[in-house]
């Protein structure tokens, strides 16, 4: 929506094709990735592989959509990877049954209750981030960095560093079906991808057709002007972190369902993948620019690229270099696109600028091999 206006200001003529290639760069990058890897490996271009890759992309995409909301307001959420891990552990914990010592009974909540409780946990974690940032004026980078450690630590504490392995449930206890999210498919498409699609549709409606979406963009560009126009700036700020937390929790559910196990280290450094996906999708880290469609493309680019590198057997070190290169290139092109426009008057903390994103390289590769293996 915000990008469509940019085209009209550029000179018309035979630059049209170039401009189209440029504006759709994430899309063409994805096509290029698919073509290149398909020629390099016969395995790559197969339905099975696409299904596997999309279920990885679903995790990245869910995190990235939450991250998009936060980045649009000019913030950053570094805690999503840890929130994902904590949510998985909580889900695993609930699936094992909750013992209530006073009565000497063990409660086995049904799967739908586990899902709701876990999503609520994500909301609480995100809500705390949001309140710290909006009301206590803690810089987003610092608040969510702190939460990154707190949530990860809490996940470790809950399991003593071990992994919950029995998530299948028991028909006698009426809590089966947890693996449905990760393993089953509808119309040949994994459920996790449907979840991503649902969240993306909601996100798109939210951003394009509701006052809330307009407010998110306005705050990211000029919070002062938004406030004087009657936008409830602080409430919107809290809500974007809250929604990001919920997205991370859903991603945590999907991931632990895919693996039918919940480890406290799941999702380590996934926050960087999410940020990278948002940036590759054309969003500005300074806020106010970005879209759901672009972010989804970004998630596909990252997911298809890293899986492709694993499939053709490129060494782990080269995987890091390639992924990092793609991210830097994306940021470079974004700054070409936004060059010459008025910058925001309030600066964002330098630490949340592209420098941090490059770290995603490491995170991306490590965590990827964990999922694949």
């Amino acid at each position, binding site marked *: 929506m915000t990008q469509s206006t940019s085209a009209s200001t550029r000179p018309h003529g035979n630059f049209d094709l170039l401009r189209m290639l440029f504006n759709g760069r994430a899309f063409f990058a994805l096509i290029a990735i698919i073509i290149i890897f398909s020629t390099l490996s016969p395995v790559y271009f197969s339905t099975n592989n696409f299904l596997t890759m999309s279920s990885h992309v679903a995790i990245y995409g869910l995190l990235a959509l939450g991250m998009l909301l936060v980045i649009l307001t000019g913030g950053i959420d570094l805690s999503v990877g840890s929130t994902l891990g904590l949510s998985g552990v909580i889900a695993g914990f609930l699936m094992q049954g909750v013992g209530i010592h006073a009565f000497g009974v063990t409660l086995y909540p049904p799967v739908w209750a586990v899902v709701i409780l876990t999503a609520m946990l994500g909301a609480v974690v995100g809500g705390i981030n949001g309140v710290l940032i909006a009301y206590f004026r803690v810089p987003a980078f610092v608040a969510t960095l702190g939460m990154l450690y707190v949530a990860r630590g809490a996940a470790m504490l809950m399991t003593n560093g071990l992994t919950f392995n029995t998530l299948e449930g028991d028909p006698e206890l009426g809590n089966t079906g947890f693996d449905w999210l990760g393993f089953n498919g509808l119309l040949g498409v994994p459920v996790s991808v449907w979840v991503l699609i649902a969240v993306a549709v909601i996100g798109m409606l939210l951003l394009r057709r509701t*006052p809330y979406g*307009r407010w998110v*963009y306005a705050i990211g560009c*000029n919070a002062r002007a*938004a406030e*004087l126009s009657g936008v409830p700036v602080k409430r919107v700020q809290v809500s974007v972190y809250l929604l990001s937390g919920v997205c991370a929790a859903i991603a945590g559910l999907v991931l632990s369902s895919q693996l039918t196990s919940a480890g406290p280290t799941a999702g380590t450094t996934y926050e960087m993948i999410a940020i990278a996906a948002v940036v590759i999708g054309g969003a500005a880290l300074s806020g*106010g620019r970005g879209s759901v469609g672009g972010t989804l493309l970004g998630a596909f680019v990252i997911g298809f690229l890293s899986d492709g590198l694993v499939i053709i057997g490129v060494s782990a070190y080269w995987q890091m270099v390639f992924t990092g290169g793609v991210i830097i290139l994306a940021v470079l092109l974004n700054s070409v696109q936004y060059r010459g*426009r008025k910058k925001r008057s*309030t600066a964002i903390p330098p630490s949340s600028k592209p420098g941090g994103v490059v770290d995603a390289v490491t995170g991306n590769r490590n965590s990827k091999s964990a999922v694949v293996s």
Partner: protein
Amino acid sequence: MSELTQHAPTDEIVLSAKDVAKSFGNVHALKTVNFDIHRGQVTTLFGENGAGKSTLMKILSGVIQPTSGEITLNGEPVSFSSSVDAQRMGISIIHQELSLAPNMNVRDNIFMGREIKGASGINYAEEARQAQKLLADLDGSIDPLDMVEDLRLGQQQIIEIARALSVESRILIMDEPTSALSATEVGVLFDVIARLKRQGVSIVYISHHLEEALEVTDHAVVLRDGLMTAYAKRADIDLEWIVRNMVGEGFDLGSPPVDHEFGAVALNIENLSVADAKVAGRFLVDHLSLQVRAGEIVCLYGLMGAGRTELLECVAGRLPADDGKVLLGGKDISRLTISERIEQGLVLVPEDRQRDGLVQTQSVGQNLSLASIKDFTRWLLTSRPRETEVIDNAIGQVRIKAGGAHAEIGSLSGGNQQKVVIGKMLATQPRVVLLDEPSRGIDIGAKAEVFRLLAQGAAQKGLAVLFSTSEVGECLSIAHRVVVLSKGRIKAEFGADVTKEEIMAASGESVAA
């Protein structure tokens, strides 16, 4: 070059633009313009919003490059690749929109990019000394170590002027340098201009305050729709000549609408106080009480620092009050947030449109509808047709000249950006509207229109209007009542029959200024 400058006759042309044109896509901002700058004299550029004044000045100072045409400096063709390039050749510009770094102090802003090097890094002491010297001429109350974000808009404008003066250029372009200054500060600036002229500096001046510009200028040039339509020497023209050439007819800022009865008290400010965070025991707004009735138009006049902006921001909910109450139609709204106050029908058009008014990444239309977005939301979703209706209404109402609702905010001329901010707040259908310097940067035609709009709202819908201004002339237009502020208190109140002299005397200005 310097030799030439010193011995040149006074009526020599230093910088001139020949057949200069500039297009942005298919917007032809300038169509073959010729423009001369005379050595040691002031040339003033007049023209409506969007006439192309800023565009021409940006070309002459290297900020943008012309699509065609040539520029000659001291008779020789030149082309500037950037504003730094132009600055090196002795041309500097004060931009219409402030370009200061708010998180840095005054000294660092003045010397940004041209830091004075010392033995060990930057020579801060020398910078501070020079900054102090520059500021002493302009506004003694600003300290070089003050943070820019803590300064009022007018003071920021003075920093912008000081920065341009610190370059000691031979040609100085001032694009609406006084839009946020009141008469006294303008007087000070004019003294500085007179001194620069004696030193042989050539000046280009742009202002929508026509009388003020006439006072200082030697040559007058009128631009209209990207064409130069008239030129004359100061001695040959008067105010009427400018207005006729600018808009083609006489103009009138209106008079107070009289054929309607005032309604009940719409806005009641009781004993309102805002303490000064910097000086204990001092108040920016000092236990002030003021009532505005439905259908009434009240003008707030005061010097810079009189507390106008603070009063209006406090009433709108932007600044917390330390004491006192604000009642809207008898209902206490002191505890409400800004958005709740807007819902209750109280809106503020802020003074600084860049900082407080506009969302740069959104289009003209999205900016216009931002404050009234709830009005066209049904079942959580916004309705496109209703939004288009609201936007088209607003564009028509305040007559915004733009390439349609989808144009980027940055492509509008300064005055049209101001109209977007006003249009956005009026689109919420308020009962009480507060406007902080609504005429800042808009041309006489637009000014008259804004005032007509307010007068019409007051007469037909019972809108209560409270606007501030630093131009005395505007107090005498549509206001039923003029309230003069000084040091956060009401110094005097006048009816519509007040004279300029009375207002200025009450505000504490010397009438001569």
